[in-house]
């Protein structure tokens, strides 16, 4: 799994690629925590290149959603691939986390509803 972070004011884009599993999820949690601790609380996770996630990845996402909302922001996800979307759906996460078709739509959502 690789993570690349960039600022696209007013949001922080966290682009993830590969598998978010029990071996890699901690790295993702650290990335989210780093941004939140730095006061960047409007997060968009670009999932277009994420091929797989297990419950470890879901825990990382849920933790970041909780923490960001507590700080007045949110974590929103863009471009979720079918296998990953199914896992999010089976876990009930599609009703917890806001999911958008692409990064532009996820970023724009903060302009009006953050």
């Amino acid at each position, binding site marked *: 799994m690789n993570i690349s972070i960039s600022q696209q004011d007013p949001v922080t884009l966290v682009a993830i690629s590969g598998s978010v599993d029990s071996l890699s999820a901690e790295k993702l949690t650290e990335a989210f925590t780093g941004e939140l601790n730095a006061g960047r609380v409007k997060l968009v996770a670009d999932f277009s290149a994420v091929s797989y996630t297990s419950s470890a990845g879901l825990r990382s996402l*849920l933790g970041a959603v909780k923490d960001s909302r507590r700080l007045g922001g949110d974590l929103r996800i863009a471009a979720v691939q079918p296998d990953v979307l199914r896992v999010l759906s089976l876990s009930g996460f599609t009703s917890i986390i806001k999911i958008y078709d692409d990064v532009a739509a996820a970023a724009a959502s903060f302009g009006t509803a953050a």
Partner: protein
Amino acid sequence: MTPPRRSIALRGPARLEFLPSLLDAVSELCDAADADPAMRHDLRLAVEEACVNVIRHAYSEDDPGEIALDVELSAWEGRPAIRVDIHDRGRPFDPLRLATPQAGTDDVQALPLGGLGVHLMRQVTDAQTYSHAKATGNHLTLVKFLATRKGETA
């Protein structure tokens, strides 16, 4: 040419570092079965969740024991399937008795961070059984009916 393997048995330390080897075994058997991508995904997910459960909870941290995995092309209730058996000698624990976590609540902050793995494991497999015996320890069986890339849902 070596014919595709119909079963793979693997035994090693119940540590996260061993997880890739366990998942590779599943992947290799999926190759042999010509399993379709959805089946590969679901088996990888189920086996990751089941094995991580053993790795994290079966043994005490300073005394990690073994995990054993058997994966085979098999039949279940008369239908072609891939069957995965996971054994450990840790503390008795039946994951199938865990309650399903309640997602979908309005109060995100109240949601627990754990418990999802077993739920997913059950959702993406067709049958699961658990048993425990003093002599042999925990034994979890996961079954997924075979769906091949040729589009045959067996």
